[in-house]
């Protein structure tokens, strides 16, 4: 039994067999195999070589010999390596003698060779290490490719253990069977955390070397309440956890009972609670948990779980399915927020050096008009089915907003020409998630119908902290006075301009921030569906006067630590079970 401590990012308890997913960009952890398995691993190695050879032969054959045939030569060299019996033997010998997986044997062997090259003092020669890494990646892709498939075709319940979860990997999950997530890297707002919360499964991140201490198939307990992962627990621990998990489920049931009750403060102020979703099938969950609509539909997942770009009809079907669940309650569709850690980097020939400051989100859309127009076309078409609103992400200045609106008008004209019906008065909003947008909110407010504050990106850009980097993630906090000041400005500017204001980041799902948000004047929040009952419970337990008092106190505080601990205490008083 081994107990590892990390950060709890999604509540709940999972007890399941572990499934380890490797990411091809990271070092493959050493993983042992049973003596009886070595033949199989050797066979996997041989198959990987065989498939890599046919893949490469195909690639080489279509390269022409122009430009001195340089690329063709490179492929030819790589092919010689793959055909090299002594290389293959080195790897299979390692599998046999050390009883390790094919992945580990490939990775260690290739890296050892590469480091030999890197040692050579001749620059021309030492650069050849890159060729070896390339061959390594090709082999690993063969080996891991089938593994990735496994995640899509699960037949039993598993807990996913990974170095770091990529959005593409999670998009492929069979959600019915994934009971929990644990990762080496990541923070509260990393992708694994967001996905786990939206699926309502427990997750613990920042476990550092979990993937190296666990073997696939080991039983694992993921305690998403206390941030603990237990590898190979003994019987007693399992029983303890089974009991604990029952109690936790009871609390959830009690909260579910308030589902039908309205989200009203004790002094009668109505707060609108919406849900954040990524897949159409989550819309049902929002309804079940008492949500009154969709405040954030993250459409990029249409791009992440399929090999080719979604067609206009793929878009339309997904939106229609979602709108159908809510009929005439709001569904806010955010246009694709690709780039940064998602999708586009994978497709780039050379990844951007600083993707979070690069071609992402609305910037990416404005440079890929065909793709952008396809989505807008589908959203407009779906707008007659219910109360659909459009939201543009990552706006940093007025010009971007104007451009986006102009393109929307173009698409409307196209629809007019084809006599396709759409809502001509569709509401348009923007995400406020950059300091520049927050600071110019009063200007931006003139041209749109609503703001939605995306607190995750707003926090990371304001504080210059990468939220996924565990080395600095402790600096990331929405309770920072700088972040709170920006949020307050945006709320005030929205009120002055008399436009709607929502908050849809992680902050809105966190019980500790609810009184603060209400006190600052927020009337609509959009959050991850599983948290809806708990947040409603808080709203129903407070008065606006309580909330205003919290804001007054906090405005006089100068440190993040002071604010965070004050908020925690204030929340604990009204909802002790949440802690």
């Amino acid at each position, binding site marked *: 039994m081994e107990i590892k401590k990390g950060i709890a990012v999604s509540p709940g308890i999972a007890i399941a067999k572990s499934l380890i997913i490797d990411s091809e960009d990271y070092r493959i952890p050493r993983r042992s195999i049973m003596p009886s398995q070595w033949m199989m691993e050797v066979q996997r190695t041989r198959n990987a070589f065989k498939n890599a050879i046919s893949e490469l032969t195909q690639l080489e054959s279509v390269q022409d010999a122009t430009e001195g045939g340089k690329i063709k*030569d*490179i492929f*030819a*060299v790589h092919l*010689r*390596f793959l055909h*090299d*019996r*002594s*290389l293959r033997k*080195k790897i299979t010998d390692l599998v046999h003698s050390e009883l390790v997986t094919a992945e580990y044997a490939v990775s260690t062997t290739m890296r050892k*060779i590469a480091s*030999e*090259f890197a040692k*050579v003092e*001749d620059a*021309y*020669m030492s650069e*050849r290490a890159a*060729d070896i890494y390339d061959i390594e990646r090709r082999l690993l892709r063969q080996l891991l490719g089938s593994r990735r498939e496994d995640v899509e075709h699960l037949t039993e319940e598993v807990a996913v253990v990974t170095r770091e979860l990529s959005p593409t990997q999670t998009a492929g999950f069979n959600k019915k069977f994934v009971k929990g997530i644990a990762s080496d890297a990541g923070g509260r707002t990393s992708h694994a955390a967001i996905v786990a919360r939206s699926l309502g499964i427990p997750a613990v991140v920042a476990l550092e070397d979990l993937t190296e201490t666990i073997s696939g198939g080991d039983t694992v307990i993921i305690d998403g309440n206390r941030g603990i992962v237990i590898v190979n627990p003994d019987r007693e621990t399992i029983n303890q956890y089974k009991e604990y998990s029952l109690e936790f489920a009871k609390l959830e049931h009690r909260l579910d009972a308030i589902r039908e009750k309205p989200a009203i403060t004790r002094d009668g102020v109505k707060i609108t609670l919406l849900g954040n979703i990524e897949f159409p099938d989550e819309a049902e969950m929002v309804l079940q948990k008492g949500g009154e609509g969709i405040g954030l539909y993250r459409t990029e997942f249409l791009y992440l779980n399929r090999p080719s770009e979604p067609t206009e009809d793929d878009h339309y079907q997904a939106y229609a399915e979602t709108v159908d669940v809510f009929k005439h309650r709001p569904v806010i569709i955010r246009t694709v927020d690709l780039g940064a850690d998602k999708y586009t980097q994978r497709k780039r020939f050379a990844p951007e050096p600083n993707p979070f400051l690069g071609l992402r989100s609305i910037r990416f859309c404005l440079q890929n008009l065909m793709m952008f127009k396809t989505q807008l076309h589908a959203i407009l078409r779906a707008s007659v089915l219910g109360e659909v609103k459009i939201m543009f992400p990552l706006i940093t200045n007025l010009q971007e907003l104007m451009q986006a609106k102009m393109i929307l008008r173009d698409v409307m004209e196209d629809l007019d020409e084809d006599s396709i019906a759409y809502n001509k008065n569709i509401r348009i909003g923007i995400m406020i998630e950059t300091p520049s947008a927050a600071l110019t909110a009063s200007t931006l407010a003139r041209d749109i119908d609503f703001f939605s504050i995306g607190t995750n990106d707003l926090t990371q850009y304001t504080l210059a902290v990468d939220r996924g980097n565990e080395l600095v993630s402790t600096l990331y906090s929405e309770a920072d006075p700088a972040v709170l000041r920006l949020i307050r400005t945006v709320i005030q500017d929205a009120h002055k301009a008399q436009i709607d204001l929502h908050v849809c980041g992680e902050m809105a799902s966190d019980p500790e921030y609810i009184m603060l948000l209400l006190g600052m004047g927020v009337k609509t929040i959009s959050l991850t569906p599983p948290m809806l009952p708990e947040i409603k419970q808080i709203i129903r337990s407070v008065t606006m006067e309580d909330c205003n008092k919290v804001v007054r106190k906090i405005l006089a505080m100068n440190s993040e630590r002071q604010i965070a601990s004050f908020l925690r205490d204030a929340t604990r008083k009204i909802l002790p079970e949440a802690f």
Partner: protein
Amino acid sequence: MEKVVCETKVDIKNADGLHMRPAMQFVDVANRFECDITVSNDENSVDGKSIMQMSMLAATYGTKLKIRAEGADAQQAVNALRKLVEEEHFDEPTPSEQKKR
């Protein structure tokens, strides 16, 4: 079958040395023959038919290599390899040719 052993010493004459592409040419020629081929520098002795081992010799310009072939067609193999390394220098420029460009 008679057992022939042949040996020769060659100098790496092309400026960039025995990097990936020359290593590929070397093993391609070596693999045309039946005999076993061993190539050695001062420190290591490797299989002349394995691109991994050949490229790991990291033989730069001016390195002296010993080629040893063992088998029926050993003589032909050694001749062909010497021609590739010393006469054709892998169809690549020598340092003096490189300067002229």
